[in-house]
């Protein structure tokens, strides 16, 4: 049994950034606790069961080249699909073009993408459905107030949230101290991109397509069609996940008819069959990814007047974007906390 020593760290957000930060701190023997607003861990590395079959409705596959990140992926106890996606259709621009550059490793898991965050979270004290609504300095500690009452306190609090959510939460810090104002201004310089995603399940007579991923080059609506069921060992049904372009997504966030429009475009691009699923489930990612032009070099670790520390990490806080950047930013922040906070 490892004895836990040093300042306790409270991590808000159980996405890959928060979990990677918490994991690295816990592995170094620090007492750490994770609070997550949702019902499960993983954030945008999201898998849900549709008719018993796992479907990745956020991140479609993982990619990277950082040896540490690839080693972390290698530890995941799941069936790896190395190189996935292999069969590609279309010449459209991928959300992360470097995913398909030489030297980049790509992979998926047959059990679903969420196998990765679930593995990171294994053994960590994670409290689900705990939504932080305010952060207030309390002597040398920070007090995090939760929705519906209740609070948590720690000398170090890490915000591993989408930039907009972190910005909002920082706005609740009374004062605010100059470091907090500065961080808010930094976050305010760029917005996350939205992504409307639609899970579409097709009848048995639908012929599964020959491709894994399709990036259409002639659509301003559909950015990516993922043949999700091609990741599963013995799929019962053909499942596509349709992801809309950032601009179109932003413009249609509040349009109740977006799933039909996206399906219509899917039918136009992929084939008429794709417009007629027997079952569909929409999901709106308001903060799907950040624009690469907004990326930052390093996570933040702010010092507050009473002596408490407030950290920020996430995919925007490391070069490269995506899950790899999220993981790296969490690790980098953990490293700084271990070095700077006894």
């Amino acid at each position, binding site marked *: 049994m490892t004895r836990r020593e040093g300042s306790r760290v409270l991590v808000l957000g159980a996405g890959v950034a928060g979990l990677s930060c918490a994991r690295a701190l816990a592995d170094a023997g620090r007492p750490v606790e994770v609070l997550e607003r949702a019902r499960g861990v993983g954030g945008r590395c999201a898998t849900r069961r549709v008719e018993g079959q796992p479907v990745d409705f956020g991140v479609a596959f993982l990619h990277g080249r950082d040896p540490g990140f690839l080693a972390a992926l290698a530890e995941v106890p799941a069936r790896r699909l190395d190189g996935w996606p292999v069969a590609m259709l279309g010449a459209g621009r991928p959300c992360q073009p470097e995913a398909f550059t030489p030297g980049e490793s790509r992979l998926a898991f047959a059990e679903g993408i969420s196998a990765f965050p679930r593995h990171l979270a294994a053994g960590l004290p994670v409290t689900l459905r705990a939504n932080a609504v305010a952060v207030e300095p309390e002597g040398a500690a920070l007090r995090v107030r939760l929705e519906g009452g209740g609070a948590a306190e720690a000398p170090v609090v890490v915000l591993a949230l989408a930039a907009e959510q972190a910005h909002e939460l920082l706005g609740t810090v009374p004062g605010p101290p100059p*470091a907090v104002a*500065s961080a808010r201004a*930094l976050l305010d310089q760029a917005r996350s991109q939205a992504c409307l995603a639609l899970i579409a399940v097709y009848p048995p007579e639908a012929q599964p397509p020959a491709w894994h991923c399709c990036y259409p080059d002639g659509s301003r609506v559909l950015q990516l069609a993922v043949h999700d069921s091609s990741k599963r060992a013995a799929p019962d049904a053909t499942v596509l996940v349709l992801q809309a372009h950032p601009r179109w997504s932003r413009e249609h966030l509040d349009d109740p008819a977006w799933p039909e429009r996206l399906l219509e475009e899917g039918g136009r691009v992929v084939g008429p069959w794709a417009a007629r699923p027997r079952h569909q489930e929409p999901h709106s990612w308001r903060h799907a990814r950040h624009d690469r*032009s907004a990326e930052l*070099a390093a*996570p*933040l*670790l702010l010092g507050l007047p009473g002596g408490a520390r407030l950290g920020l990490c996430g995919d925007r806080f490391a070069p490269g974007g995506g899950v790899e950047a999220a993981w790296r930013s969490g690790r980098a922040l953990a490293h700084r906390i271990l070095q700077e906070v006894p």
Partner: protein
Amino acid sequence: MRQPELDPLRALVQRDQDHECEGFGAARTCVRVVAVADLPTRFGHFRLVGFWNNRDAKEHVAMVHGEVVGGEEVPVRLHSECLTGDVMGSLRCDCRDQLTEGLAAIRRHERGVLLYLRQEGRGIGLINKIRAYALQEAGLDTVEANLALGFRDDERDYAVGAHMIHSLGIRSIRLITNNPNKVAQLTQHRVVVSDRIPHVIQPNEFNRFYLETKARKSGHYLEAGGAGRLQEQADPAVVAREAGQEPKA
């Protein structure tokens, strides 16, 4: 029959065509001399030497005055690219004054080299530099923010500069700088620094505004129309009080 002697700088291009060493600094950067040409400038005649490096697409250059290959005690100035200052004449920094004074200083000597390092905005790039300016306009404590934007306490990568000095076959240098740390950094990379020449900006009609503002401020930073500044170059400028005044170390 005597062969016409090959220009020593051009000979470096030939020498380096298959050059590969273990590299300098943490990134193990290795550079090659790949192109040489004359460059008449308003500051005098220089030879421009282009360097390729194996780590990034940054095309570093050296402005060479006089015979430096194989030379000893060659005056050398390291200048980091600053588009806003060098080209646009920004008053948020003193980069253009530092650059022109660097070139003028080299011309005052029999020979010398200005290494123009392409590390815009202290290595963070132009866009993040603009973001940092925007944060300053909000009057913010930007230490952490700068860190996230890519600024480190001293971002300079002297490894590339050191390799460039070695590539030019310079045996020892007189470093034009006000920053003793630069000397130490270069020495770490086996550059023999025999002397330090203070980098002192001579007042003239173009930088009078700068001087006047400077006189009102005790620090190194100038307030240009209320806009905050970032120190772009690794060493703060020292300005002679009167025209013609000799610099003091």
